[in-house]
């Protein structure tokens, strides 16, 4: 992209048509989301919303993303480009492609991309893609969250392949997929929902092409990305220049290597340089790839950076999220590190755990030169518990996948938020009544953890604690949890939030500690006890407003009185 074209105003399309078509493209992406939520079968999609929808141009750049997950900001275009690369010469109307390979632009195997080309009178307009998290994609562990040491162990790996040809499903392909995942009829429902969502957006693109013409529509798609880039540059240039470094360590990859007695930690290092209307992030000095599934493809790492940058640069959401917005940002990392995974490293945890961590660290790295635009570390982990086995109530196989939310970090002018999705994540919890109706478990408590928000002039959001009792059967469970060793950091003098904790209480009352990653057996009557982290505080705790502290004491968010507050 040369500088000239970057700055050129919208010359070719009149501005009203541009605004109207831009809005229509974003509404189409939003409509995809509705179709998916209302027709999908698995709770993680239909009630938790773990998916993203996008509309892409002919070359696979993202033109519009629905109001979805920031985690997918950076990596969906690569997934669509992988399909285009392979099928550009023979994609026809009614084709649907599928793939989940992190080494072809995917994120991790459970995130299944369904990609459909959009046509109007034989001309290709662009592509639509729904990336949805399937609760199971095979492997030895229900939920596919086992601590394995290469990608072959992580489940069914699909390079870009054709699933529908000219509107007709390829039964061989579909059968092969469904034979390799647990609860295949549920997966089929999810898959149909993904196909239907794409179909809806393709129809809407065709309507737009009919109204404005194919050339005009495809040109406006480019202009929408240019527009985002222009806004991003403008808003970046209004922020102070500077450079900052930050490092933080992760709890472990779930693999205890020969000679180790516990899961070894490893470190991520980043440097952010902001100059004028562009920004560079590099991860030089980050630890090499680990043997467990804690290695992120670079596009996943970049998603974490993009997410925080969007919060820093554009808190009022003026910039449409698309590929154009990220052109002024350069993210680099040495290949073969945990933030730039190379085949065949396993990746499943890293998808959210690395992007969460990188998102929080981006704030940390910029705290010194733009303190008014950053927040303290949030819960920084997806807090995943999966359960699987045979439901004794009906003899059916089940897989449950839940992510438990903790605190949101304190801000420059206000406290964090208790127990809410933060950073790259924005999935919803599964209602307890829906969970217990669907799976043989009982939730014993689900509540705010007092004193878990980091102290500071502004307090970090509190975390949550929750327990599940396994009913009348033995369950095969898995966990993916971070910040048990490295609590979510405070900023500008604020204290860290409370770390995460996980253990298993057996029926006889004994409590067994659990590793933070990987599968474990949860026998009949046992209880999984989880505390997800609180968030970091912002500013000197001594400067806290005493009325705010009194209110925290009254409501029980804090149980220990601080004396001598100056605020």
């Amino acid at each position, binding site marked *: 992209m040369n500088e000239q074209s970057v700055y050129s*105003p*919208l010359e070719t399309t009149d*501005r*009203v048509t*541009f*605004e*109207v078509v*831009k809005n229509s493209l974003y*509404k189409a992406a*939003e*409509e995809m*989301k*509705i*179709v998916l939520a*209302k*027709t*999908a*079968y*698995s709770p993680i999609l*239909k009630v938790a919303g773990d998916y993203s929808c996008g509309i892409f141009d002919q070359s696979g750049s993202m033109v519009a993303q629905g*109001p979805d997950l*920031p985690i997918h900001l950076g990596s969906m275009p690569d997934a669509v480009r992988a399909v285009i690369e392979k099928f550009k010469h023979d994609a026809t109307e009614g084709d649907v492609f599928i793939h989940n390979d992190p080494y072809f632009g995917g994120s991790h195997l459970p995130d299944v991309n369904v990609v459909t080309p959009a046509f109007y009178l034989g001309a290709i307009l662009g592509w639509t893609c729904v990336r949805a998290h399937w609760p199971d994609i095979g492997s030895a562990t229900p939920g596919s969250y086992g601590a394995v040491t290469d990608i072959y162990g992580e489940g069914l790996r699909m390079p870009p392949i054709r699933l529908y040809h000219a509107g007709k499903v390829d039964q061989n392909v579909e059968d092969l997929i469904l034979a390799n995942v647990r609860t295949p009829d*549920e997966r089929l*429902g999810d898959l149909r929902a993904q196909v*239907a969502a794409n179909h809806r957006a393709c129809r809407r693109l065709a309507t737009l092409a009919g109204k404005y013409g194919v050339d005009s529509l495809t040109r406006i798609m480019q202009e929408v990305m240019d*527009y985002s880039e*222009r*806004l991003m540059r403008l808003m970046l240039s209004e922020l102070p220049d500077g450079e900052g470094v930050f490092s933080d360590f992760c709890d472990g990859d779930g693999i205890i290597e020969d000679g180790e007695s516990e899961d070894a930690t490893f470190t991520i290092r980043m440097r952010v340089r902001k100059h004028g209307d562009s920004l560079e992030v590099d991860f030089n000095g980050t630890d090499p790839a680990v043997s467990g599934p804690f290695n992120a493809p670079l596009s996943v790492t970049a998603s974490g950076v993009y*997410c925080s940058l969007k*919060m820093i640069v554009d*808190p009022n*959401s*003026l910039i449409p999220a698309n590929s154009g917005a990220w052109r002024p940002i350069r993210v680099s990392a040495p290949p073969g590190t945990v933030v730039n995974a190379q085949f065949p490293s396993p990746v499943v945890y890293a998808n959210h755990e690395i992007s969460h961590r990188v998102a929080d660290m981006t704030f940390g790295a910029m705290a010194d030169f733009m303190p008014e635009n*950053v*927040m303290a570390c949030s819960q920084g982990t997806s807090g995943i518990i999966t359960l699987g086995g045979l439901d004794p109530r009906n003899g059916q196989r089940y897989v449950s996948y839940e992510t438990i*939310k903790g605190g949101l970090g304190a*801000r420059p002018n*206000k406290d964090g*938020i*208790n*127990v*809410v*999705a*933060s950073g790259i994540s924005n*999935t*919803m*919890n599964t*209602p307890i*009544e*829906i969970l*217990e109706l669907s799976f043989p478990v009982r939730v*014993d*408590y*689900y*509540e*705010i953890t007092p004193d878990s928000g980091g102290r500071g002039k502004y307090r970090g959001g509190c975390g*949550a604690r929750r327990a599940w009792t396994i009913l009348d059967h033995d369950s095969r469970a898995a966990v993916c949890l971070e910040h048990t060793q490295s609590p979510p950091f405070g900023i500008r003098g604020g204290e860290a939030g409370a770390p995460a904790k996980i253990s298993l209480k057996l029926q006889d009352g004994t409590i067994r500690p659990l590793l933070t990653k990987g599968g474990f057996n949860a026998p009949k009557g046992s209880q999984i006890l989880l505390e997800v982290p609180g968030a970091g505080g912002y500013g000197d705790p001594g400067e806290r407003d005493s009325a705010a502290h009194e209110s925290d004491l*009254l*409501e*029980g968010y804090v149980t220990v009185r601080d004396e001598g507050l100056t605020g």
Partner: protein
Amino acid sequence: MAWRLGVDIGGTFTDVALVNDADGTIGIAKTSTTPRNFGQGVITGLQQAIASYNVPVDDVSLLSHATTIVTNAVLEQKGARTALISTRGFRDLLELRRSARSDLYDLFQDAPISLVPRHRRLEVTERIDAAGAIVTPLAESEIADLVATLKKLEVEAVAVTLLFSFLNDSHERRLGEALRAALPGIPVFLSCEVLPEVREFERTSTTVVCAYVGPILESYLTQLETAVTDLGLPNLHIMGSTGGVFDVKEALRIPVNSIESGPAAGVIAAQLIGSQINEPDLISFDMGGTTAKASLIRDGEIEITAEYEVGGSGSQNRWVTGTGHPIRVPVIDLAEVSAGGGSIAWVDPAGSLRVGPGSAGAEPGPVCYGQGGTEPTVTDANLVLGYLDANSLLDGDLPIDYNRAVQALEEKIGNPMNMDAQTAAAAIREIVNNGMAEALRIVSIERGHDPREFCLVAFGGAGPLHAAALAEELEIPRVIVPPIPGGFSALGLVGTDVRRDYARTLYQPLSDLAAQDISAVWSELITEGKKMLKESGIPASRWQFHRSADLRYTRQAYELNVTADEGEFTTTTKDQLADKFHARHEQTYGHQNLNEPVHLVTLRLTAVGKLDRLEITHHPDTVGNSEKSRRSAWFADVGAVECAVHDRNRLDATSQLTGPAIVESLDSTLVIPPGWSASNDHRGFITMERHHNE
């Protein structure tokens, strides 16, 4: 000669609609809304209406009211001091919500507000499981302490939500009984009475909102009822969110049932028009100063949804934002966009023109009102394009400053974008129309309905200004503009029936349930409905009961509502219900799965007490040459053209107008673009149609 009166409180005006039962004559009285004490404006409006139309109070057969008290109390956080009692371990459910944040990228977003602060969220030891069985019995011994705590906290209302009470309500009922006995005068709302449906957060939120607004609603409605009784008027009725009315006692039983009463009234009014002109398929479009709302009427029936939030950042129904307080009671399915006459146009930092979501509201209002507004609005754009009278509006009551509007458009839009004021105005209009077309899309195309098969009913102060352009966009062939568009909603209040909706969650595969078991639940609900109708004084000959079921594929999360046919419910009709569901799924989402089991989530019953059907007419005061002036107006494709300006009051039953033309009345202006024609009829309805030979 009997009259029906309806009172609707809007942001600026309180409208009273009158209908004469005998000949259908309608009238309207407008008075300023009194935000500090809404009841005052209501009484003033009623007095004005009665006086100006010489209505003998003894001849009023129905008085109904749409109230915004519930919504306002939540928005302004002025509800009662409320306590919540939950199952032990779950008192934070109200704050934990569904754990999604409302804005993905707003670093400075606030935490969603909890209507009950944590120190007033109490717990009781008990647990019921997913089969409805008691795991831990209710700890009777804790009740005395709970009562003592509630007294110490000086609470004004209590909400009780225990897990799985929709399957087994014994604990909630026992606790409710004990609390009501120990706390006389303090309303206690039980989730099993308010919303016996699955999903604990949504059920808790709904019950809490009831408790939070209950005392305020009670004081408002009882005072108002006394005042109207003093005027000699009959008992007050309140419009519910599904478009029926009920009496005050019923309104207080479940306060959230009247949450969307104002918008519901507009849709009911549109339905009334449809039944009169034999047009069963309508899209209602209501555009005022700050929002535009669309709703769909199919086969004469309104569409109902159960996904609704109060006090959120937006209620466009495509995606509930999660910022408000979810209320899972049925409401009329409306799509709402922040687009109205007051919507502000602005140029963003990248040089693109945007309209809204900011609004100049009633104060300071559009620039042309000359009341301090400086930001150009949609109304200013309509003025500069020639659609609105350049001298005054509201029959001369509102002077207009045309030059100031031109100046604002030039300064704020024209100069930065290098266009003149008129081009800027046309651009603003196109963008706002596109946004509103989205609301029409949501209720039609997105729900599987083809807008070309519908007729658009346009009302609200600004609706008729934009109706033809929207119809053009969605290829809707016909537009109906009712008389008195600005006060049209209030007519819905009197053109409806007594109605209440009941629900019971069963949550079982349809195939596991015997037809007689389903039938038995409906019978219980019918018994409740009969009791309500009897207490409302509706004779049994006017009772109707409509049964329906919320169904979905077993593994889905969202249900579709399917109506059961009249008559005995048998195994055969049960199968027909499943067939209807498959067909509805295909229509809505484009696919169905005949092999997948169908799950019955909730059985619903609507109890209706039919009131006499209304046939409304509006007789203008004067008849004669309707053309009162000519002025230049700007239209896409043709540019500025001279067009006739007609006085709506002087149109007669045979008036035919050809676009471009403008029709003015007291509270609204109708634009007939080139390519459209319009005809007035004997009832005062204007029908606009596109020419066939375009």
